[in-house]
Each structure stands twice: as C-alpha cells, then as structure tokens.
C-alpha cells in the first residue's frame, strides 16, 4: 500500500487508486468533451450492445456504470441517442407455461374413470345388498354432488401449482363445511342417503388422493373393495372401510404436502360457480330416468367409460390453448392482431380437442358394444351418444368457465338440465313412450351445446382478440 492510495476521508477513489477532491466521478477520462462523449457512447454500447433508445436509458447507464451524477448524465444523454436507429429484435421465445392445469386434468381423468369402473363393478353386489332402487337413488344423489365438489375443489385448490399445500391451509374448514353442508344432510336421507354419503366421500377423496400422485393407491383400494364385494363381504362394511381408508389417505396426503407456499387459493366466487357448473353436469347424468343407474347391472356405468376417456384426452389437449395461442401470435404484426381466422391457433386447438373427444368416444363405444355380452347389456348406441354429448358439453362448459365467460357457461349448463327435464316431462305427459335410452340426456346436452358453441367460436376465431380480451383478462 503506497502513500498515494491513502485517502483523507473526504473523497473519491478512481481506477488507479487516486482520490479526487471534488467527490464526484468524472463521466469519462480526462480530456475534451468529445472524448467524454465517446467514452460515454462506449459504455452504453458495452452495456446494452446497441445505442441507447432514449435519453433516460442513456442517463441510467451512465449513472450506474460510470458513477456520473444524475445532472451530468442527463446533460450528456441527448448526444447519445440516435434518432435514426430503428430497434429490431428476433421474436422472443415464449416459455411454456406451467403444467399444473394439465396435471390436474390427468389426475381428475384417472379418478373419474376409476370411480365409474367402481360403480360399474359394484352395481350387481350393491344392488343385491341394498336393492336396485336404493342404489339407483344413492347414485342419483351422489353423482351430481361429487362432480360439483370435484369442479369446485379443482377451481379453488387442485388446479393450482401447490394444490395440496393450499388445500392443507383450508382443509379443516373445507372438511367441516363438507360434513355439515353435504354429508350430514345426505346421510339423513332415508335408506339411500348413507350410501350416497359414502360415495361422495370416496369419489371426492379420490380426486384429492389422485392429485397427490397416489392414484395407484386409490385404484388398488377400489380393486380390493370390488373383490371383497364380489366375494359377498357385507356392503356396509366394505363401503365404510373404503370411505375411512380414502379419507385417511387423503389426510395423510395433505399433511405430507404441507410445504410453505405463499400461493393463494382460487377465488371463492369462481369456485362456487365451478361447483354449480359441475353440479349441473352431474345433474344431467342422473336427470334422465331411462338410464336406471344401478338397476340394470353394469349398464349404464360402463357406457360412460368411452366418453370419459374421450373427454379426458380432449380436455388435456385443450389446455394447450394457453401456450399455443401466445406462440401462434408471437411475431404477428399488429395489423393482423384482430383478424378472424378459422385456421388460427385458437380454433385449431379447439377443433382438435373436440375431434379427440368425439373420435375416442366413437371408437371406444364401438369396442364396448362389441363386448356387450360381457358388459351385461351396455350396448344401446343411444347411451354412448348420450354420454358422448354430455362429455362434449362438459368440455365446452369447462372452457367457457376458464375463459371467464361465466354467464354463457351458466346459461348453457342450466339450459341443458332444463331441456333434459322438460323433454322427459313432455314425453311422459304426452303419453309418448320413448324406448330410446338416454334420449332426454341427448336433447339436454344438445341444447347446452347449441348455446355454448357460438360464444366460443366467436372468441376463438380471433386469436389475437381472445388472448388480449379473454385469456389474459379474466
């Protein structure tokens, strides 16, 4: 350390260790104004890799990387902005969005298929123990409630990145509310109520367990329960044990995922709307008495499987919307930002999802029909059409909801249920006996689809507009 490096406590040290008595950093090295300006230009080019785009950018760079006082930097800055430099850059690559929604769809899909399979396989043994009508009643209560709760849970918790951690925060309150508002009133219903309550707990708990990534555990449990029922184990004991086990696994799943997160749960009004929409979808499934849940053995539960798998694949594909539309618009000039294109990214994803749903449902329905003797009569083509229509409507309503077209979603869902009920009433009062299973369901779902499609097509045909006004403004 040489003497010249020593300061007097009131100064500025420059690059070679000398102190400047005035306490201000010079903009450039010693020399003329032109040299200062060249130095400043060099600093800016080195820092930005281009000229400054405006005087404030130049000022900030000079302040931060030369230590120039604001006034000095501001007075130098105007000379450093090139008015004929037209900045261009390659279109930035857009990162793929988080996979949380897709994970949630997968989990939900697996749970739903397993739930349906369990209903299908339990129909005969449970009908034997409780009687077919009691079982049918129980399913009619349980299915809409379970689907409603699953939609609501997904909207508020399970569709989020830290789903179970967030759910864990509200878990006790949610369980208490579910017990008081759903399970207890349900259990009080004569005969079928307690069975419905166990179904709801098993199916909704299954959704949480699957979201935890323990779908295999859940599936194994259902298989064991099915074998036990098949071997004439008492239905009450099996359902009770299964409910208890599902809830315990659910609790363990939540407790072991209690990591700290500052992510918030989804909004309550939105979750309530999702619950309502899920309830309508579930109600559609049970409002048509021609379906006879539980009365006719495996029929019609098995008939649901093709459409559920189709719906799952279609829904999974549809979530690409959030990635594909921004990618499709990257680099698109402003002049095309509001033009309509039926082959644009929005419509292509939408149509792709619909095709996947319909195609899968048709192919799998044909397979199920071919093995109809094994599935105890689940071979009525109208049933496959009915469930396929519900799946399609469910996809459309889900999309409307996720685009925050809430009124349209609600209108479509409510109109579908109303049309289904009205059709059945009309047929019954007019004395026309329809021997087509699921006719009312087809009518209801078709009405819902007719109402849901126009707002979606109008929006999705204009990819730029849908991104700006709908996807990014909820």
């Amino acid at each position, binding site marked *: 350390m040489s003497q010249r490096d020593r300061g007097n406590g009131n100064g500025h040290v420059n690059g*070679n260790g000398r102190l400047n008595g005035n306490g*201000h950093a010079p903009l450039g090295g010693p020399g003329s104004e032109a040299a200062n300006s060249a130095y400043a230009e060099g600093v800016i080019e080195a820092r930005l890799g281009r000229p400054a*785009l*405006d005087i*404030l950018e130049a*000022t900030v760079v000079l302040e931060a990387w030369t230590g120039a*006082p604001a006034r000095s930097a501001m007075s130098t800055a105007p000379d450093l902005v090139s008015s004929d430099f037209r900045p261009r850059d390659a279109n930035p690559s857009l990162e793929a969005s988080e996979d949380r929604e897709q994970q949630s769809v997968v989990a939900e899909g697996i749970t739903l298929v397993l739930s349906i399979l369990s209903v299908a396989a339990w129909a005969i043994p449970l009908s034997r123990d409780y009687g077919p009508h009691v079982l049918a009643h129980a399913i009619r209560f349980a299915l809409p409630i379970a689907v409603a709760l699953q939609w609501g849970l997904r909207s508020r918790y399970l569709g989020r990145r830290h789903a179970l951690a967030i759910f864990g925060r509200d878990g006790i309150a949610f369980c208490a509310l579910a017990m008081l508002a759903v399970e207890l009133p349900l259990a009080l219903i004569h005969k079928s109520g307690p069975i419905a309550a166990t179904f709801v707990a098993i199916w909704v708990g299954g959704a949480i367990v699957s979201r935890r990534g323990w779908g295999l555990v859940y599936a194994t449990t259902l298989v064991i329960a099915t074998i036990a029922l098949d071997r004439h184990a008492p239905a009450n004991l099996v359902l009770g044990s299964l409910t208890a086990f599902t809830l315990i696994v659910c609790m363990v799943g939540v407790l072991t995922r209690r990591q700290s997160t500052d992510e918030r749960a989804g909004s309550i009004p939105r979750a309530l709307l999702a619950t309502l929409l899920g309830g309508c979808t579930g109600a559609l499934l049970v409002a048509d008495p021609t379906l006879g849940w539980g009365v006719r053995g495996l029929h019609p539960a098995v008939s649901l499987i093709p459409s559920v798998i189709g719906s799952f694949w279609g829904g999974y594909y549809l979530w690409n919307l959030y990635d594909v539309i921004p990618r499709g618009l990257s*680099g698109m000039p402003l002049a095309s930002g509001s033009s309509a294109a039926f082959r644009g990214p929005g419509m292509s994803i939408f149509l792709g999802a619909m095709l996947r749903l319909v195609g899968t449902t048709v192919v799998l329905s044909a397979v199920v029909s071919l093995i109809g003797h094994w599935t105890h009569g689940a071979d009525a083509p109208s049933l496959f059409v009915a469930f396929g229509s519900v799946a399609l409507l469910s996809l459309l309503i889900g999309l409307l909801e996720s685009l925050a077209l809430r009124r349209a979603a609600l209108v479509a869902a409510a109109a579908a249920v109303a049309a289904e009920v009205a059709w059945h009433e009309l047929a019954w009062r007019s004395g026309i006996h329809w021997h087509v299973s699921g006719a009312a369901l087809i009518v209801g779902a078709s009405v819902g689809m007719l109402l849901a499609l126009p707002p979606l097509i109008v929006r999705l045909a204009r990819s730029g507009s849908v991104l700006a006004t709908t996807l*990014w*403004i909820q």
Partner: protein
Amino acid sequence: MSTPSEAVIPLVRDRVDSTPETASVEPIAPTAPISASAHPTPAAIPRSRRSRVLMITEGTYPYAVGGVSSWCDAVIGGLDHLDWDILPIIAGGKRLRQNFVLPAHARLLRSIELWSEDAPPRRAPRPRRRGSGSKLPSQLLRGLLPWEGSLTELTAALVRCRERPQAVRREFRDSDSWQEFLLALVEVLAVSSDQSAPAPVYDTIEAARLYQTLYWVARTAAVPTPPCSLLHVTAAGWAAIPALAHKAIHGTPFLLSEHGVYVREAYLASVNNASVSLGQRHISTRLALGLTRATYAAADMIAPVTEANAEWERGLGVTPDRIRVIPNGIQPPTHWTKAPGIKKVIAMGRIDPLKDVQTMLLVADEVLQRMPEARFEYWGPATSGQEQYARACERMHEQLGLGERFRFMGRTADPHGVIRNADLVLMTSISEAMPMALLEAMAQARPAVATSVGGVPSVLSGCGLIAAPGDVHGLASAVVTVLDDPNLAERLGRRGFERLHRRYTLARCVTGYRDLIGELVNGAA
C-alpha cells in the same frame, strides 16, 4: 390465471418478497422519539378536527420488511396527531404476512391486489358522461405510452374508471376495444420524439401484454378511496394511480415521497434483464415514465430522500419549489464502540444485480491478494426472482477460490450487531437512493467504502471513501486503505457517527414530514 405480463411494470421490484432491502430487517419501533416540539397527543385533538391522511404504499408497508416499510412505520408512528388510512398495493395470488402492527391512529384498508383473480370493484352505475368517445384502453394508451403522454386523456380515463368501475372489465373484454386499441397503438408508436429513438416494432403478443397491463391500471384506478385531507403516495408508480383519480375528482392535496426514482428503477430493471424483447422493454419503461410524469404533474409536493433523486425530478420537469428533500433517518445510539480491528469487511443487502455482488467478489479477491488476513461477510438473502444471479455469484465465488475468506451469511436479525463486529462496511451497488446500510454503518461509527451512485456521495461525505461503480481496483484500494490504517478508519467512523446525529436521525425525518404535511393540509384548508 397467471399470465406472463406480471413484470410489465414491476410492482416496486424486489420489495414484495418480504425480504429486507437493506440491513434493517427489524421494523423500527413506531414510537419514534420526537423531541422537536410538544405536539398534542392523539387524545388531545377531537377526532372530528383531526386530519386524515391516505397513505398508498406499493409492495412495502405493512407486508414487506425493508427500508421503505420502516420509514412508513416511523412516519406514521411519529405523526400521531393525524389519522392514517393505509392502502397497500400488492401482487395478487400470494398470501402476505403483515409484518408491522399499525398504531391506534392508523387503519389498514383492503389491499389492491394486482393480477389477482378477484372480481373488480362494483358500484351502482352512474349516468354516462359525454366524453371523447374513445374506449378506455385507447384512452389510457394515449395517456401513458407516448414519450410525453396526454395528461388530460390519462386523467379523464382514470376518473372514468373510478366513477364507473363496473364498466372497466366489460370494456377491456370487448373485442371492439381491442381493435380500437391496436389502431391507436400503431398511431402512438409512429409519433417521433427528439429525445428517443423510433419505437421498436411490436408484435401482437406485446400489444396484448400492454393491453393487459392497462387493464390493471384501470382496475387500480377503479378502487374507491376514502375521504381524506391529504394523499400521501410512496412511489410514483402503481401507488399513484388511486391518488391521481382521487385528486382529479376531489382536488385533495397530494404528497409524493420518493425513496428511489420509480422511472429510473424501471429503466435499470429493463437494462439488467437481457432476456426481454425490445417491445417489452419499451412497454415497461414507457408506462413507468407515463405514470411518473402524471404523478409529478399532480403532486403538490415531492419529497425525495436525497438530492440525487431531486436531480431526476427536476430533469423530468418538476419545478424546484415543489421539491423538498427529506433524508431518511434512523434512531442513532448514544455512543459509539471501537472497531474490533480484525480486518473484517461486511456488506449488507439483497443478493441482486443492482448490488453488483460480482464486483464485490472481485474487490474481495484483489483485497485478499494484498491483505490475506482480511475477511468478508455478505449479509442478506437473494431477491426473490434473482436466484439465478445468486447462483452465478456462488459460482464466481468458487472460481475465484475465495473459500471461507468471503462468506455469504444469509439474513440477519441483528444488523447493528453485525456491523459492530466489523471494521468496514462495503457497498458496490450500481444504484442506490439513500441506503440504510450506510446509515447503520455511521450509527455504529464504522467507515464505509461505497460506489458513487445516487445519494451515496452526499451521505458519505467526509466519513467514507467512494469509487465509481464497477471500479474494482478503486474500491479494493479504498478498502485496503481503510483496513490498513486504523486511525483513518476510526476518524471516518467517528465523523460518520457525528454526521448521522446531525443530519440523519429519525426525529429529523419525522419532523420534516410533520412540517410538510402540516403546510399541505393547512394550505388546502
């Protein structure tokens, strides 16, 4: 749904993560010892005669811990002859813990959450005014995006949002609004200015991002604000939006406190983020500039914490008579302690590109070559979102082979203790306004070596050494100079301690605000 434009105008970047901005990780007790005058206690003034101040914070008080939050707490606690309403603006989708207990004369209003899923405010519709006929997005665009936006259009748009909040979402979700916005955007981008290069070419994604940000500007303006005698805004960004609408409607006096210059920070953030497109950079800086200009135009008084900020304010057109520098202050200890003499250098602050930790590592490397017995400690966590930078610093630390001689220590709950056990405080930031770490060093009578940015030269005048930012050799020489000469170190430290007592005490800061707020409120009355 989360969308990618949350970073278009940063919500007071780096403060929303509840991490300390500087060494002050503990809130300052709200009971600031004010000796300036015998002001009546809260109970002495009838509630009906007490003035009510609406303080609007942005990503800070009372949720985050840091310099701005501590300052808010001290000012509110010290000015108990006023009633305070606190309206925080925070990033949505996150749960925040309240880190400060509000005193009895302060009331916390419901936060405005940006990018949240919550529905916008609703109110009974008022009769539509005859206006320009433009839709909200285009009107806000013309007010905010041009180099010199139309303040008239902006004010009219913000007032529209406040008066008809239920129309905000509907207008923004209307495809006609989007079409009109695109046309207006093309026009605005074509306007040239001699102070800026031509605007970059936007694509539809960038336009959609801008559109979404303007929606949040509109939603922020739509939130109702309670009646008050004074609007006190703590940053010229998002926090100013509700105040701009309020002032335009009620004419309430408007005070802006600037800890950092908002537009300057937005520019620095964009310069430091090489991954954003030129379009995004243009959007973020222009919106920050638009908000800053509007805030400067509306504010009756601006109180920067340092003269360096005042330079920016004057540069952006604020007349000197509307600027009053009120430096930050801390509660100083009554006596100072001797340095341990172990050649320990500490730094306090977040691990963030603005702190230029990499330069600090290079400085440490050079110092250690010249003085192997020296030791360095860096206290503070990585800023949320800057984890990659923190990892790069760790890699650099490894490459330089600094080992245990330079340690990253993480958070501390006792910044004063940390400084007391050191011989020197080092700061290599490329941007600072009035760093609390330096005030804390002065409070403990420790010398500081720092970069000549923002208000640092004026704070350290006579009690530390400064060098240009990024000047590794200059900074290292200064560190060696001080460590090598205990007498010089003690002299600098003592001068700092005395200077702090003279100029940077909390009482002085609170008194400055008491006088200023009194003038504004009484002037309006």
